[in-house]
């Protein structure tokens, strides 16, 4: 368990240390599977869960569907409950929301593949999307969480629902309650489940080779040098704190060059001595002038600064912790600055998909030779009329 900041817990310790230890790649010293969950238990639960899924697949005749769903749900539930209890045993409360949303996501995913009625499957899939969006929120990926809800639950699933309703036979009086054969039965459920569970067992054992900790504090942080890419944001934040009443306002380019990434400081030139003194005396804005680890108390630093202030004097401004790049800003920067070509290609792919869908959905009208000739005549007449008019 060395190399992780789990034992002390990131809430109490300095978040910056945690971020640093999180950047380190997972080493063999990271957590192994035995430290997270008992491998035998995991294996047994996955196999039982597979059996449950096989039972829960829709079939004709005697249907132990409810039983199967219960077995599968219980088996996957046991794994997560054990994961949670292990975590609680280490002296920390488990992250409740994670377990709740993971169970909702998996349970509704199970219903997607076992529900015989397609409309209900699609609705359960929306539930899966919503709960995995909640998992994204727990990971502090706010932008993707809401984009997921808007795009998937809002757009793609509605298309699915439309098509499901378009592509079902209108039920006649006699067979109103009867489902079609292909919905009521499944194809080779045992083989499919064996394949799937084999894949899952392999994945779940392979993934555990030295996994790292994700603490919420670290997940909320972004790469520390990203702030240097946002000089206008720094200017805006400093503006809100009325810093530029006292100091000269640098251009964004100059600010980005002068910004010290490691210490989060930026030198600014004094313009107005009295306004600077006012800033130094104000308890809210004086935080900007006090750095950590200089060995002085804040009062000493401030009094030392206020004695030596004159126009043209450069003062180091320490950016407080709350000035950080938000998730949406970070994603936008990575998308535009890092992958502009891929963004253009994605646009082209969407355009092609739209053209393809239009071509596929267009009604094909077969015209006979006679009709084509009539059409051509009519066209010719129109052109003549238009030419005569001109």
């Amino acid at each position, binding site marked *: 368990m060395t190399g992780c900041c789990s034992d002390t817990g990131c809430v109490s310790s300095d978040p910056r240390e945690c971020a640093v230890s999180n950047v380190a790649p997972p080493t063999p010293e990271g957590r192994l599977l035995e430290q997270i969950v008992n491998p035998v238990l995991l294996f047994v639960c996955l196999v039982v869960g597979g059996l449950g899924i096989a039972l829960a697949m829709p079939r004709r005749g005697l249907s132990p569907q409810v039983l199967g769903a219960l077995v599968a749900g219980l088996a996957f539930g046991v794994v997560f409950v054990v994961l949670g209890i292990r975590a609680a045993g280490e002296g920390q409360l488990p992250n409740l929301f994670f377990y709740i949303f993971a169970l909702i996501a998996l349970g509704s995913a199970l219903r997607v593949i076992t529900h015989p009625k397609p409309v209900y499957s699609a609705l359960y899939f929306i539930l899966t999307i919503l709960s995995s969006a909640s998992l994204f929120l727990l990971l502090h990926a706010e932008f993707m969480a809401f984009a997921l809800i808007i795009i998937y639950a809002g757009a793609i699933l509605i298309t699915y629902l439309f098509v499901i309703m378009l592509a079902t036979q209108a039920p006649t009086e006699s067979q109103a309650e009867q489902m079609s054969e292909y919905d009521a039965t499944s194809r080779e459920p045992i083989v499919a489940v064996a394949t799937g569970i084999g894949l899952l067992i392999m994945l779940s054992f392979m993934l555990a080779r030295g996994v790292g900790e994700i603490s919420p504090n670290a997940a909320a942080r972004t790469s520390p040098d990203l702030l240097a890419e946002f000089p206008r944001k720094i200017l805006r934040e400093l503006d809100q704190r009325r810093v530029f009443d006292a100091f000269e306002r640098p251009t964004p380019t100059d600010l980005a060059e002068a910004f010290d990434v490691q210490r989060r400081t930026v030198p600014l030139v004094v313009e107005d001595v009295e306004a600077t003194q006012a800033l130094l005396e104000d308890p809210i804005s004086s935080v900007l002038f006090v750095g950590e680890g200089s060995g002085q108390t804040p009062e000493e630093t401030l009094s030392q600064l206020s004695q030596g202030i004159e126009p043209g004097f450069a003062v180091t401004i320490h950016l407080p912790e709350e000035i950080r790049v938000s998730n949406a800003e970070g994603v936008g*920067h990575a998308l535009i600055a890092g992958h502009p070509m891929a963004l253009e290609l994605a646009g082209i792919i969407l355009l092609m998909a739209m053209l393809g869908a239009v071509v596929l959905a267009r009604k094909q009208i077969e015209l006979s030779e006679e009709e084509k000739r009539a059409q051509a005549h009519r066209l010719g007449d129109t052109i003549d009329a238009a030419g005569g008019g001109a």
Partner: protein
Amino acid sequence: MSHLLDAIMLAQSNVLAGPLTMYHYLLVSAALFTIGVIGFLSRRNMIIMFLCTEMMFQAVGIALITFSKFHLNHTGEVFVIFVLTIAAAESALALALVVLLFKRRETLDAASWSLLKG
């Protein structure tokens, strides 16, 4: 009053701050992917089969965001955006095809098109 508020905030942050490893999220992702695979292999309704591919995309998205958060950069999240784009394009085309196929055979059974095997 403020002590009570502090206590509530602390309790809340403790509940949020359990020792989650990457493994937790990756296990959810793997399980979701597997359920998608099982559904794709065993269901016979073509629409549900495409729904299951969407579920697999979703699982991959969870894994990508987990890795992105672990490495403290946003490339994983950007890749999820592209996955969403491809999923949207795929569903538009696939559903148009499904409607065409349904018009021709009046059934959504994937097995009814088995003569495409040649």
